[in-house]
């Protein structure tokens, strides 16, 4: 079967979901009102609250939620065959993510633009807020540590991409400086910067001198280097130290100097990447070689599939974006359908093309099953296979293979780097917020908070017991990423359900995905915490995962009980429930 059919089927489902289901939810469930004065108008201040065109806001929302995660999850989950991954992405986007992203946006708009964390505090209590902060802190810590390894790994595997990625930094600073001084638009300079980057990538693909291959500088794979590390580990150490120094500088500089122009250039890359993949798919018309379902899988898909693909099917992080920034900029309440629901559809389309790139990459089914031989193997290989698969689609557009894989890795590194420095910045803000909440003055200072964020991320990254070799310490906590992210989504759907019930409306469109999601997540968590990490079952105990997992699990169950009592009408009724 051709991969185009999968894309077509996906697009039809997304179209029907947006055209009919989101319309039903907008009109009958959330009852959007075009005349409602949104927080952007109520509290317009030119800084946080600014009425914004719905297309612009959708673009902002989409680029904020789309990163490397909707690619990594599906690239691993195809281990169970393409059908389960495809169904979860399509149905998850239409019935869960769309309702969730759209709902958190409406809920926040109806509550003065407050974030889901604050609303959970008001509705469920202080412990909900603490859980939110704890999960977010853990998520950003994991993201920092894992993405540092991912970038270092890509630099080592694709040394031709290094020059292109590093050339972006001075170009971004130059753009930031000239645009800030001359008050012009960034469009043309950033396109020129992108062209320079890709020209560097093409050149470096052919000129070995431009390939910064640290492993060979240190004497080749087996060579020993100072600190008793082999050349590969030493290369990881050097890249991770460079990255940590970079994120420290990037997250403390004023945004206009580096971050804004860099993100601006990277947003073009999202468009380039999507165009490259979908155009390549149409031109090459590749065959799906992965099996429909993996009947010999040792690790059961149930309930693990639902936490392996988070972003792309449903992700709690989107609720933070919806209620954190998008809700403060929504011009009309009726725009929420386009921004929230269609934002989720955009993310689903990215996950869909990631699935297609992976399941069409291998020449035969045997090659696929050899690489995807176990869940652990799939987790390690997923991203690499996606890069090769995407490069294969790009070669269909006439691009030489080595250039295609360099450019795809440049795009992935850029996504990962954007996520890395935003999450270090976010971690700095959370540490400072905790400092002011608990009156610990020193950590409210920018450099102290950033140092804590960077040093703790580097420490986790460089833990010697990293499951994928030196520098992969972030993966020690990674199994918690999907569960904690889905837990956030479940709690947000619960808040929407409670709000709808208090309005006397049909709350099932939010309640049913919530029940499904929380059941799957708690099931997976209990399984992991009790039987895998505690040492009770056959698996060896993992105290780090057990401790963090148990804390989250206890909090989650506690919140669930409180929320059920709130939902049944016995709990706290503080929340502003203006209709």
């Amino acid at each position, binding site marked *: 079967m051709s991969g185009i059919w999968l894309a077509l089927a996906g697009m039809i489902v997304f179209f029907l979901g947006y055209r009919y289901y989101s319309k039903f939810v907008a009109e009958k469930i959330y009852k959007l009102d075009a005349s409602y004065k949104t927080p952007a108008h109520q509290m317009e*201040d*030119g*800084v*946080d609250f*600014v*009425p*914004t*065109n719905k*297309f*612009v*806001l*959708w*673009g*902002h929302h989409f*680029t*904020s939620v789309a990163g490397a995660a909707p690619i990594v999850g599906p690239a691993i989950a195809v281990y169970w065959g393409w059908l389960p991954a495809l169904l979860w992405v399509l149905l998850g986007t239409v019935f869960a993510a769309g309702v969730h992203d759209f709902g958190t946006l409406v809920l926040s708009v109806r509550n003065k633009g407050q974030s889901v964390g604050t609303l959970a505090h008001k509705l469920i209590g202080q412990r909900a807020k603490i859980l939110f902060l704890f999960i977010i802190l853990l998520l950003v810590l994991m993201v920092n540590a894992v993405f540092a390894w991912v970038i270092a790994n890509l630099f080592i595997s694709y040394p031709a991409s290094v020059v292109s990625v590093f050339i972006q930094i001075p170009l971004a600073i130059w753009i930031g400086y000239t645009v800030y001084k001359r008050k012009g*638009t*960034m*469009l043309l300079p*950033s396109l020129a910067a992108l062209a320079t980057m890709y020209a560097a990538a093409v050149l470096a693909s052919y000129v070995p001198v431009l390939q910064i291959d640290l492993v060979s500088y240190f004497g080749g794979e087996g060579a020993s280097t100072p600190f008793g590390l082999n050349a590969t580990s030493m290369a990881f150490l050097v890249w991770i130290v460079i990255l940590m120094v970079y994120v420290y500088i990037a997250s403390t500089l*004023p*945004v*206009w100097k580096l*971050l*804004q122009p860099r*993100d*601006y250039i990277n*947003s*073009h890359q999202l468009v380039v990447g999507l165009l490259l993949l979908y155009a390549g798919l149409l031109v090459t018309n590749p065959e799906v070689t992965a099996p429909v379902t993996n009947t010999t899988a040792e690790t059961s898909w149930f309930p693990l599939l639902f936490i392996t693909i988070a972003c792309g099917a449903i992700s709690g992080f989107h609720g933070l974006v919806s209620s954190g*920034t998008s809700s403060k*900029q929504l*011009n009309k309440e009726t725009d929420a359908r386009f921004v929230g629901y269609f934002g989720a559809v955009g993310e689903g389309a990215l996950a869909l093309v990631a699935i297609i790139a992976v399941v069409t990459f291998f020449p035969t089914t045997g090659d696929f099953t050899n690489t995807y031989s176990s869940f652990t193997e799939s987790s390690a290989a997923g991203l690499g296979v996606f890069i090769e698969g995407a490069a294969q689609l790009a070669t269909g557009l006439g691009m030489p293979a080595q250039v295609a894989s360099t450019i795809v890795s440049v795009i992935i590194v850029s996504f990962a780097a954007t996520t890395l420095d935003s999450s270090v910045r976010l971690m700095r803000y959370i540490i400072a917020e905790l400092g002011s909440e608990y009156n610990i003055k020193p950590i409210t200072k920018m450099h102290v908070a950033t140092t804590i964020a960077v040093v703790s991320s580097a420490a986790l990254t460089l833990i010697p017991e990293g499951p994928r070799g030196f520098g992969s310490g972030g993966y020690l906590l990674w199994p918690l990423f999907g569960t904690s992210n889905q837990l956030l989504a479940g709690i947000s759907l619960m808040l929407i359900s409670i709000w709808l019930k208090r309005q006397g409306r049909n709350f099932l469109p939010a309640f049913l995905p919530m029940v499904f999601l929380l059941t799957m997540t708690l099931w997976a968590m209990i399984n992991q915490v009790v039987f895998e990490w505690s040492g009770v079952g056959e698996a060896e105990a993992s105290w780090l995962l057990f401790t963090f997992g148990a804390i989250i699990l206890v909090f989650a169950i506690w919140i669930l009980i409180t929320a059920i009592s709130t939902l049944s009408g016995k709990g706290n009724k503080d929340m502003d429930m203006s209709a």
Partner: protein
Amino acid sequence: MVERKFSIKRLVELYDEMLSVPHRTEIARELRDEDDLFLLLVYSDMLGIPNPAFYYTLELYPYIIEKFHDWHLRMGMEKSPLDGIRCC
């Protein structure tokens, strides 16, 4: 917000705005902080900080009075905190 007619120029503007929005808030906040500092310099004499350029900055009062009003509202003061300035 006025809906405008569709054109390629408008499309490019939308795309540009789309990519600028994520950092708009932070940049606006940074600029506002710079403005606040300037405000403090201009009004420093009234706050008891000697300002040798007082007579010159006096000329700027009419231009920044609106900003001063926004500032005291933002700082949670409903009325002007300075006796000499009655902006509201």
